[in-house]
């Protein structure tokens, strides 16, 4: 058998292999097509239909004409960034702490992180309302301890909303970060120390960069999930923190057609994809989400 025939045979095997893999993946591909691509396409289509049922740009024109839409989008992304930032500030040190614990203790700590995760979002949100309100536990205790004299406003505003959202989103950040930290060989740190790096330098030049894939994956998940939040801002925001999802609901109630609401969904989708695209220009998304350290 000559080399050319051999190469052709190998190519054929390769193609067959890929075809088989595609066959295996096809149920998933069909599912994604059915539950993601088609509905999003439909959403896009509906957003261009006006109140009279014909093609129209009125749903987009309205967004430009009224200032409230720009403000609502700003609030939405602000909440997304702030929640993500706070989750990183709180979650990263916690994940670091847990990853250094011996096995059983670490598991116990992880369970305490996960336990609220398994409780209904609605219940947790209302629990925060009870805790944070003017005559709630937090204000009552702080006043009786003399921390402050008058009840402070920590709910029915952005503060309350962020407290609730950070609490709900923390596990989404801690778990991937913790996973990344566990997979790091701690001997690297010893090697760094051996080469003369202090604990600080060893952490920042060796450990921290290795956790970045987990950190980015977690942050991305938190950020994207935040953009669609409805219940928490509606309950803890006191009607003052208005996010896109809430506007979508009020537009469905207010206008006769679905287009007014669909257009909001389309703009949110496009803006989110734009942000991801910008992020991917600066960070190598594929490498990050692949979780590899190569």
């Amino acid at each position: 058998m000559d080399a050319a025939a051999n190469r052709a045979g190998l190519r054929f095997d390769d193609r067959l292999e890929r075809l088989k893999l595609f066959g295996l993946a096809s149920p998933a591909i069909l599912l994604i097509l059915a539950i993601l691509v088609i509905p999003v396409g439909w959403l896009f289509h509906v957003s261009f239909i006006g109140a009279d049922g014909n093609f129209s740009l009125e749903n987009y024109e309205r967004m430009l004409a009224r200032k409230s839409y720009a403000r609502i989008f700003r609030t939405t992304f602000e909440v997304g960034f702030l929640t993500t930032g706070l989750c990183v500030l709180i979650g990263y040190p916690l994940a670091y702490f847990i990853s250094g614990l011996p096995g059983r203790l670490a598991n116990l700590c992880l369970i305490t992180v996960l336990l609220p995760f398994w409780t209904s979002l609605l219940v947790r949100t209302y629990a925060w309302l009870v805790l944070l309100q003017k005559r709630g536990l937090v204000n009552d205790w702080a006043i009786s301890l003399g921390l402050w004299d008058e009840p402070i406003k920590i709910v029915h505003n952005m503060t309350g909303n962020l407290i609730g959202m950070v609490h709900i989103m923390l596990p989404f950040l801690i778990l991937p970060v913790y996973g990344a930290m566990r997979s790091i060989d701690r001997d690297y740190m010893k090697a760094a120390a051996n080469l003369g790096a202090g604990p600080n330098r060893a952490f920042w030049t060796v450990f921290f960069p290795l956790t970045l894939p987990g950190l980015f994956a977690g942050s991305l998940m938190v950020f994207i999930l935040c953009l669609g939040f409805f219940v928490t801002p509606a309950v803890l925001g006191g009607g003052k923190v208005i996010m896109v999802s809430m506007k979508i609901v009020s537009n469905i109630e207010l206008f006769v057609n679905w287009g007014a609401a669909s257009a909001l969904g389309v703009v949110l989708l496009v803006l989110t994809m734009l942000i991801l695209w910008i992020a991917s220009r600066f960070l190598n998304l594929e490498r990050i989400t692949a979780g590899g350290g190569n």
Partner: protein
Amino acid sequence: MRTTAILAITTALAATPATAMNKSVTIASWGGSYQEAQSKALFEPAAAATGIEVKQETYGGMSDVRLQVSSRRVTLDIVASGSGSAARAAAEGLLEPLDYDIIDVSTFYPTLYTEHCVGGDVFSTVYAWNTDTYGNNGPRSWADFFDVEKFPGSRAYRGKVAGALEGALMADGVAPENVYRVLDSEAGIERAIDKIRELKPHIAVFWTSGAQHAQLMKDGEVDMTSGWNGRFDNAKKDGGRVAYSFDQALLDYDCFAIPKGAPNKDVAMEFLAEISKPRYQDDLPKYITYGPTNKAAYETGVITAAQAAGLPSSPENAARQLPVSLEWYAKWETIADELYQEMLTE
């Protein structure tokens, strides 16, 4: 959904087998202490008397009906709705016309039923205050509600435009009888919204449901709020420190309608005829302080004089209030709410 199941069982037990089997209606209302009152006073006894099986649901208002009708998958036979949204829904063609040969409205207040919606109860949008904060010297007008110097303290106000502009205009010096005339232009609507804009730094919460504003008062979270009178009475019954006044309140009514294409339209009509009778309506005030729409309900002897004095529709209380204009809501609500949302997001 558990209440639905229990109710279905109790009604099935109560019904006489001969008439019971195939007749059933699905009713959607607003939930909370309001639907509980409707259920006890109207739905359950009427179901027992007619043998019609009642399935109860809660819903999100006429937007749900709009969705069902436009997708031609109507599951609701009867919906409880605010009069204003019912008027809009009717104008959009989402509701069946009611048959007043079947539903007897001869003793109804003439303004409390329309071609597509028959009144179920009369309520008021009032200002309420915390009696711990203000004692017996509570606000006496919308002007007082908007006056944070005379009445320092935090406020709550509605997060939607319905029932929000009238009080603001009265606070701005417009006489109640001129309110809807002034509101009949974008400039007039802006004038009312500007008044709320002024109060906004003191508005701690923009509420979105009756259960919410009742809870805000019960918890002492705010010192004053606008809201629906019956919810405050129930909050007071639960130990809330809350009082309200009918002076300058907005007199409004809830009604029952049948969505276009309802699966059990004829049974629904029969059921509406039943619950519109005085013998059911006179029970409603026992559970929530909303008045009957059928005048004859005052004459059955069930509503005591003391009870009547506390109802929004008693002649003395009604005279102190501004009746809500359905025409105004049909014409302006969408535009006004958009302008209102501008103010909310500032």
